[in-house]
């Protein structure tokens, strides 16, 4: 198990914060993140003691447990130059909320603030810190229903409002060949996931996600893309129940050209017309 930890003075030692959802549901996103970070010139490690950022406890009002979980994360990652997560929500938890958890604790507060300053969402890290303006490899998207692969991008709440992720994924996606991005109405509106909200108030959550999916469909997209797996599982799961007419993928997969891995949810319209599996 590789755990090289660089000196903080070096600029490219990155700890990958996999996130609990990627770990359980979609490792391919984690591997895509690894590849992208390495392509951008980083030495990437995956600390073995990481589990979760603690947001489920924090947002349930269980501050004490959130603090203990945060301490584990801080200890696992604090010796890296940067911490990168393929999720605006988890990055936001560390970056915005960890310092708050330790406002009464000078020692842990300092450690939390230091880590917060070095924690980034994946795509914005590539563009804003590694200064990637386009993808290092030529990536060609497979055919969509109408020639180019049409996608639309959902801006997750924490990614957009906490981590300022908006232009960056669009910038890198624009260097994928045969890809056409059409903006949906209200791309920055919540998808209705909200962690435990979607299981406590599922009827309201369904109403909200239906509104989001209506907007997404209206773009004629073949693929619904986003940077947060919670949102994607929610939107994909509802899509599967209510008319499975778009693929759903994480942005990292597109940026490494991983169109082979089955999408989170698959477009069930004519399989011949849709994105083909086994090609790239």
């Amino acid at each position, binding site marked *: 198990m590789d755990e090289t930890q660089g000196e903080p003075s070096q600029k490219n030692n990155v700890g990958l914060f996999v996130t609990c959802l990627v*770990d359980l*549901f979609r490792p391919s996103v984690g591997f895509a993140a690894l590849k992208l970070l390495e392509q951008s010139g980083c030495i990437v490690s995956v600390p*073995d003691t990481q589990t979760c950022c603690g947001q489920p406890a924090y947002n*349930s009002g*269980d501050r004490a447990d959130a603090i203990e979980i945060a301490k584990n994360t801080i200890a696992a990652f604090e010796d890296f130059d940067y911490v990168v997560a393929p999720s605006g929500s988890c990055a936001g938890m560390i970056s915005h909320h960890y310092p708050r958890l330790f406002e009464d604790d000078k020692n842990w507060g300092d450690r939390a603030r230091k880590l917060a300053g070095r924690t980034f969402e994946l795509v914005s890290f590539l563009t804003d810190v590694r200064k990637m303006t386009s993808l290092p490899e030529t990536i060609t998207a497979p055919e969509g229903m109408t020639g180019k692969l049409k996608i639309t991008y959902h801006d997750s709440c924490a990614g957009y409002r906490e981590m300022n992720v908006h232009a960056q994924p669009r910038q890198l996606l624009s260097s994928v060949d045969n890809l056409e991005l059409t903006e949906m109405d209200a791309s920055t509106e919540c998808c209705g996931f909200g962690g435990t909200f979607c299981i*406590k108030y*599922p009827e309201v959550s369904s109403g909200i996600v239906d*509104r989001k999916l209506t907007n997404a469909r209206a773009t004629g997209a073949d693929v619904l893309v986003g940077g947060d797996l919670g949102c994607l599982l929610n939107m994909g799961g509802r899509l599967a129940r209510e008319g499975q007419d778009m693929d*759903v993928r994480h942005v990292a997969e597109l940026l490494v050209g991983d169109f082979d891995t089955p999408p989170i949810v698959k477009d069930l319209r004519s399989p011949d017309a849709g994105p083909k599996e086994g090609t790239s």
Partner: protein
Amino acid sequence: MQENPLEFRKNSVEALADENMQAAVGFVAFGFPLMRKMAIDIVPEFEDLREAGKAIKDHTLDHLDFYLEAFEEKVIASGGQVHWAATPEDARQAILEICQRRGAKTVTKGKSMVTEEIELNEFLEDNDLVPVETDLGEYIIQLDGQKPSHIIAPALHKTVPEVASLFKKHHAEALGSEPRPDDPESLVGEARTILRDSFVSADVGITGANFLIAETGSTVIVTNEGNGDLTQNQPPVHIVMASIEKVVPTLEDAATILRILARSATGQEMSVYTTFSTGPKRATDADGPEEFHVILLDNGRSRFLGTEFQEMLRCIKCGACMNHCPVYTKVGGYTYGSTYMGPMGSVITPNLMGIEKAWTLPMASTFCGQCASVCPMKIPLPDLLRKWRETAFEKNLPSATERYGLGLWVRYVRHPKVYQLLTKIAARFLAHWAGSRRLISWLPLASAWTDFRDMPAPQGDSFMSLYKQQQAEQKRAGVDK
């Protein structure tokens, strides 16, 4: 629809099935943010104004007692009276005493959410007074025995045919039973005709206040229909009902905040009327009330002072938060079962009713953050909602199943080795369960998810497990990392 926050989920289901409400909140979701954005895009210094407004309110709240007493002094100096009401009951009694002393019968009302909060109309009616709402939206819902469903647009859930039918019934005595035109302009004309009589015959006029100005002892209302002005200057008695956090130090301070109030609320640069009232009519005034009273209501605001919740007291009741809320614009105001709704209502209501009676409201949020990003007073609403969740958790208010589930998860997430093993097992099991469809439509204990959505299947193994295998293979292959 139950007027009980604890029935939020049940109320939400009713609201989702209510076509009129869905049409109304659908319009709010689209129209209000658009209008706000247009009004704000033309003000390059909007962010500076937000900062300035926040600073004014923060300073005032840090010295609230001083400014309230300064305000009172000026009101008295200009010939008015101030009544301090700790509770809704105190406020209602103070108003009743004034009305009874004057032998009042009809009381006209400008729009005031605080009078809804203290349930004033029912109380006045119980005491043989006739309160008449004069804001058109409030008038409509008063005829139908309803409460506001939005703090700025109280009747947004009503359709034109519904209003026509209400007016046909309730205006029959005054206007006859002959069929009348029922287009919106004609209906407004009917309301105007009816309300004219009330305005001139009222014995007491009650308004709210958007601001109380300590420097001059003035109260300020912001209206579009002119009803506020006719309510306060026609009758011989003007009562202002205001909560204590409405005070600001100076006219300049009020002017600063006025620059962002209407823009945030309705997308207007200013509302049609912005009215400053100082004391009863002076000897040289042509008209105006003989008596001027201000009722200052606490009802829990002072409980917020000196706590993290003090920031909530900066609220200027613009409604921007609920206009941009994915939850409010899906279910509308009645779902909340409280005087105040949406994000601001979800912070205020547990303070008014006690967290035990209202803990569902802070839970009914996705924490998307839209509210905080549009609040003109920069109130960190999601953080305050989370604070309430912490209080609820301390009091064991989430259900036992939920706490148990969370507790289980917490136990494993703090032990990486056990966590990794369980994640790997879960990834395998769920992938197998999902089969070739790669979707799970049903899973024991997961009905809250699967009743509404499929669950996309995991990929068969966890990342950490696969990564370790990959690292081991690379080592075996002699590739050093």
